């Protein structure tokens, strides 16, 4: 009767969420690294870099993630032959990570850029006045303060990324939404139970995550 007391079903559920966890962790890492770099580009004195950053944000922020993930699969993998792993499922995972990271990086970039605007211009001026280069000023003075100012919005972006990770199911990874579909297909009598367990798992993990970021944002806030 109980769908999740069946060992095979439980395995489908656990495997599905393990994929989501991995997609979230690796995707977040990629998105934050690329996003920070893009933000640095967008405030740099070099026009080509500024243009590159702006183009990235405009392209990826305004394209549906589903299309980007499809492109990773059909464009990068099928057509261009980009292969990350011989294991098909692992390859799909990495294609998904690429899609999630390049997409989310656009949002991370804009969050950090707005954070940079909260840092008073005098901070960068003082850094330049003691002889720091543009790069030192950015990495030691401006970005650390900007980063602390945007912990809360970055938390929202990370939570969105975690939920968006279910889209990787469309290119054949057995993550949670595919797992849910499979369980519903074979256990039609328990649709509500299955749905609430899957949705509940997201909620149980993400609600405390949101509060955690709120707490961290307060703790790390730069006092002026």
């Amino acid at each position: 009767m109980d769908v999740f007391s069946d060992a095979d079903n439980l395995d489908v559920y656990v495997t599905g969420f393990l994929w989501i966890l991995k997609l979230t962790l690796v995707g977040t890492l990629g998105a934050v690294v690329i996003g920070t770099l893009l933000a640095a580009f967008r405030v740099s004195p070099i026009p080509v870099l500024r243009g590159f950053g702006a183009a990235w944000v405009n392209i990826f922020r305004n394209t549906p993630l589903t299309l980007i993930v499809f492109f990773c699969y059909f464009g990068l993998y099928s057509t261009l032959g980009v292969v990350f792993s011989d294991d098909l499922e692992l390859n799909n995972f990495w294609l998904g990570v690429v899609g999630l990271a390049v997409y989310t990086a656009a949002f991370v970039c804009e969050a950090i850029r707005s954070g940079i605007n909260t840092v008073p211009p005098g901070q960068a001026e003082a850094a330049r006045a003691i002889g720091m280069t543009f790069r030192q000023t950015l990495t030691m003075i401006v970005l650390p303060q900007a980063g602390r100012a945007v912990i809360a919005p970055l938390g929202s972006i990370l939570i969105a990324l975690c939920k968006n990770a279910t889209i990787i199911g469309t290119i054949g990874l057995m993550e949670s939404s595919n797992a849910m579909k499979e369980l519903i297909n074979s256990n039609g009598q328990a649709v509500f139970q299955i749905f609430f367990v899957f949705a509940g798992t997201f909620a149980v993990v993400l609600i405390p995550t949101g509060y955690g970021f709120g707490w961290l944002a307060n703790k790390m806030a730069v006092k002026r």
Partner: protein
Amino acid sequence: MSDEALIVLENVNKWFGPLHVLDDVNMSVARGEVVVVIGPSGSGKSTLCRAINRLEPISSGTITFDGKPLPEEGKSLARLRSEVGMVFQSFNLFAHKTILQNVMLGPVKVRKEKPVEVRERAMALLDRVGIGNQAEKFPAQLSGGQQQRVAIARALAMQPKAMLFDEPTSALDPEMVGEVLDVMTSLAREGMTMVVVTHEMGFARHAANRVVFMADGQLVEEAPPTEFFANPKSDRAKDFLSKILTH
């Protein structure tokens, strides 16, 4: 004279759009000299001060520091700035760093000096400006006067050849002005080359070698303080002094 001069400005012009903020300024500051720049607000004195380490690029003319013209941009400009200490009106201490880190950052990151040695020097400087016991606090936990004294220590930690002060006491509560001026006066006595933009006429009188009076972007008059305050030559300086000294 020109052999001795550390800072030389020749025919310096600066426009902010249509506004002519520096109008053909010529000035030189000798080693060890303390020059106080005064004048009504909007006269260009802050811009002049900021032009000396190129925080404000000039439109035309030349500025020479220690015998070399100011570099355009990049590493050589950064190196020049590391030799010129600057103190701002709004302190601008790094808000996410402790007091000690603020003072150590320049020598360690810009000069690549050993943190152990810098720490000793930084603590000595903080003791000197009377903040040694607050070294582990963050800027926001200090009063304005204390923050400005830390800012002076931060600039001194780079062992600069000259110090620029851009209205260092204008953002302070009156009771804190004295503690900052005391530090500046002792620096002046020790022979530091200083360019000080200020409204503190008392400081100009007792610490300056020379007073420079600016109005409308022009360097109108310069003289030793006793001479300038007792006997200003230009009408604009007379007018300015009558407005501030009658109260």
